[in-house]
């Protein structure tokens, strides 16, 4: 009697246990390969503090102020109808339609505020604020400051090539209203990008991708309207009233606080950041931003998100 050894082995390998093992091995390899880029993106994060040794860079550092908007932005609470209807194409289309409707309404409400602010130069205010803030940072005060509205990765990469410095500190401001028009918010994102190409990078814009940044931090200043009513249209019209007086004051106050918080942010140490983010600090939520409550000597609400989140009323 002949024993077909190989077929038996094959058969054994195709048996229930063998199949499961193969599936497990193949799936493991697949997931490991597919997960590589995702995993590396999650792991690599820029520094949240400027270490003392990183304050001076070879080739010098320049500053570019970015304001990638022409007027104050409106905002909406995104529709959750897609989730409520169980997702799918219909749910997605319903959500898009609802979001479009909300956007149109918000854009209509913000129009009088934009008109009232038409002579209010936020781009100039952002540049003056940056200049005043950096004057308080000894290792940045001599850096040349330029301005741009192109905050795209390609735009930033072009700036790295055209500005003769080894590193650029991009300070990008955005300003908007909360969806209910109860608050005016200004956000400054500070990012340091090196002119030199990172190892293994093939495209110039890789220099400004998050994982290759030398530093990244954010500061948010929020000013609440003193007149908040339940209806967003009521809030919007009050921001616009009297030539946009409240909106002008809120923008001025929000940028003035940036002047205080930007130097403070750039001077933070790793220990200070860890202490502010400690779980022992109570969590709070202001103007749509979450963070841990910090001591505030001047009485306004101050959170750490990470990144400072400052909240004050307009008196």
């Amino acid at each position, binding site marked *: 009697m002949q024993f077909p050894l190989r077929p038996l082995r094959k058969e054994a390998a195709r048996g229930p246990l063998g199949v499961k093992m193969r*599936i497990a091995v193949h799936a493991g390899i697949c997931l490991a390969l597919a997960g590589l880029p995702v995993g590396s993106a999650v792991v690599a994060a820029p520094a949240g503090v400027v270490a003392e040794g990183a304050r001076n860079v070879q080739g010098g550092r320049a500053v570019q102020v970015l304001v990638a908007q*022409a007027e104050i932005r409106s905002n909406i609470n995104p529709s959750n109808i897609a989730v409520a209807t169980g997702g799918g194409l219909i749910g997605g289309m319903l959500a898009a339609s609802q979001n479009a409707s909300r956007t149109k309404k918000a854009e209509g409400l913000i129009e009088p505020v934009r008109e009232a602010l038409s002579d209010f130069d936020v781009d100039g205010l952002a540049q003056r604020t940056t200049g005043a803030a950096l004057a308080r940072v000894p290792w940045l005060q001599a850096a040349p400051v330029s301005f741009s509205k192109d905050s795209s990765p390609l735009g930033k990469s072009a700036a790295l090539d055209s500005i003769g410095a080894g590193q650029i500190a991009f300070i990008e401001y955005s300003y908007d209203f909360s969806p209910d028009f109860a608050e005016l918010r200004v956000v400054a994102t500070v990012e340091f990008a090196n002119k030199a190409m990172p190892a293994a990078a093939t495209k110039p814009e890789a220099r400004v991708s998050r994982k290759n940044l030398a530093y990244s931090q954010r500061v948010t200043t929020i000013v609440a309207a003193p007149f908040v009513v339940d209806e967003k249209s009521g809030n919007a019209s009050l921001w616009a009233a009297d030539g946009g007086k409240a909106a002008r004051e809120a923008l001025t106050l929000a940028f003035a606080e940036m002047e205080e918080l930007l130097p403070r942010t750039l001077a933070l140490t790793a220990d200070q950041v860890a202490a502010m983010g400690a779980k022992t600090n109570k969590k709070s939520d202001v103007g749509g931003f979450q963070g841990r409550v910090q001591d505030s000597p001047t009485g306004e609400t101050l959170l750490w998100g990470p990144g400072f989140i400052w909240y004050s009323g307009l008196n």
Partner: protein
Amino acid sequence: MRPPRPKLRRGCVALAVVTLAASAASAAPKPAQLTATFDERDPPKEKASGCRVNFEIVDGRRSPDLVGVIDRRAIRAPADVQAWMRAVLGGLAARGVDVQFAAAAPGTKSARFTLQTAWIQSTVSTYSASVVVRLQAEGAAGAAVDRSYRGRVARTAYWSGGTGTLQSAVDGAFADALDEMAVDLKTLCAG
């Protein structure tokens, strides 16, 4: 029982394709380039009113090369602003105003048209375009127009956030501004 290898191989390939697509999506997007054209979705059809206006076009924007940055993608403005604004002002013809850009002929009003703002932004799945233009014109007997006009429009991007949708949004915002401007120009001509 069929061996699982082909299915697994197909699954693995599909997963790899999805991963590569996701990686490509996270790469820096190329700028979108708007064209120096003006195409209205539903233009008005007013008859010529006999109002003829000769325009001088001025660009007063702070960043003439850019009309927005959406999802890390720069939206580039047409390089030739004169050609672009001529196309936009051509939309006044459908509103009863005869537009000229050459030396003013007798009986033609002269106007200065300044493009102050043209910007587009996204909110969730909607593109919102807004424009601000200023018109300065003088009519007979000391009548004059000197005011800014604002135009805005929102377009739902759904899954096609392409250049066509962006162009349509900007065109819609200009059309919105032209509506009111045409009324003032015809009043000026009539005065």
